């Protein structure tokens, strides 16, 4: 088993935290994982990218080479990385932030607003990706999210990660997303 995930957007969207949570949850689920990141010198704004490789084997090259899933949370991120995906790979974009054709638009931001705050859209995405890649049990993912967020925000984040999972499970078209 090998899953390569690339998440791109801009600084401040919690993209790197999302990558960290997925990688850590994968190791908690008994897999190998490497999480890498790229960003510019700005702490907010500017391009940011997180990559996660999850595998049942030791991982040599730590970067994503042919992503199974690309998530774009910004137009610039989609424009740069949206085409570079494995043949059977999936491209996901945030419905509210990216205009693109032939990809799966997911309401990460809108769903985050519905569960309470736009700021947890990255956690909604984590829940969605966890369900999509099917190698991390949801309870492991949820406990990893809770271990990586500020105290006092547990309820909000638990709702967000669960709402993300449900977005995938209840997606229109069932298994036929690509």
């Amino acid at each position, binding site marked *: 088993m090998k899953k390569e995930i690339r998440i791109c957007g801009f600084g401040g969207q919690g993209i790197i935290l999302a990558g960290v949570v997925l*990688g850590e949850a994968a190791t908690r689920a008994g897999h190998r994982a490497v*999480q890498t*990141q790229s960003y510019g010198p700005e702490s907010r704004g500017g391009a940011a990218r997180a990559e996660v490789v999850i595998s049942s084997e030791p991982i*040599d090259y*730590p970067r994503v080479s042919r992503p199974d899933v690309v998530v774009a949370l910004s137009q610039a991120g989609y424009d740069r990385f949206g085409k570079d995906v494995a043949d059977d790979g999936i491209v996901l974009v945030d419905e509210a932030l990216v205009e693109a054709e032939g990809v799966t638009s997911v309401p990460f931001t809108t769903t985050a607003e519905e569960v309470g705050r736009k700021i947890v859209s990255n956690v909604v995405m984590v829940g969605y990706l966890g369900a999509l890649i099917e190698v991390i049990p949801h309870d492991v993912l949820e406990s990893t999210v809770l271990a990586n967020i500020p105290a006092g925000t547990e309820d909000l984040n638990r709702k967000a990660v669960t709402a993300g999972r449900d977005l995938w499970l209840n997606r229109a078209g069932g298994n036929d997303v690509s």
Partner: protein
Amino acid sequence: MSRERDYRRVMKVLGSREQFAQGDVACAYGAILGGCDFFAGYPITPATEVAEAMAALLPRLGGAVMQMEDEIASLSAVIGAAWAGSRAFTATSGPGFSLMQEGIGYACMTETPCVIVNVQRSGPSTGQPTEPAQGDMLQARWGTHGDHEIIALAPASVQECVDLTRLAFNLAEEYRNPVLVMTDGEVGHMREQIVLPAEDEIELVQRRPPTDEPGAFVPFRAVQGSVPEMATFGTGFHTYVTGLTHDERGLPATDDAEKHTKLVRRLVDKVRDDTERLTRVEVDKEEGAEVGIVSYGISARSAAGAVRIARAEGRKISHLRLISVFPFPERAVRDFANGLDRIVVPELNLGQICHVVKEALEGEAAVELVSRIGGEIIPPKEIVRALVEGGEKV
């Protein structure tokens, strides 16, 4: 562990033995498990997380962390702390490493045990702060002026950030020399699973204290081997510490060619003569291979990917990974090259260690470079292409 510090107390601060941790933080863990009790530094991307982790962890174990005004002061504080008995280190990146060259030379000349982690970023100058590079490798060897030897290690994983930083502290104490941990922005910011060592896996090598009484003790005379015993400040011994050429008493002897030669020869030989003992390489040799890779640091991960791809295509490829880079493991590299026609060296620079490899091989095999700068690490396929079609001539 050192002094009042015991393993249980350390692990209470570091957390569980198995973690999904970042390379920089892992360097901090390795330092603490290596007995570090003093850190001085100045924040710089991509090494800042080392300082942050040390600031969060070390005071809880009774150690001291100082944010200095710059990198010159950082290494100077580390050198002072080492003479006061600490196992001390600093962490920086390219621009800071340049400033530390003066202190590195001073530490070599005064035989001060100290560890410097360089999380290399793309240069020259301030370059690309957030992007990884391996552009400081020859600066590590020759950045400070004058004849000297350096010990340098190159982690290729987050686990090795723990293991090699820990090792660096022992080597620094044993050889009384600066030890460099040459990581990079990719390994430094990468997260992987690590396993921290168990209590019985930890050995702390200590500097040797004086065997003579105060008054009889000669601070820079190597009585056993070529590393002198070290009289820590405050233990009753007079030790004059200077970067000037000094005699065995430590007193300046700047116009004495014989004393200078004897001193500098000893400083160089104490490391160089122990190259075999300091050599750490990982060899993956394939019978019948005519082409090999010599790699180090993050580029070794690209190389391992290239070996996997090439072998799946039915090609025979051998691979040697340098874990210790200096003193350069000449013999190990020569043994590895035996029977190979070509050796490919992948590096995140325009060619540095490839030259050292070439010098070591003395024409035994052709040396070719796979070079990349600008921020992305080397895709394995670029190395595969060089293995098949040839790389850049060195």
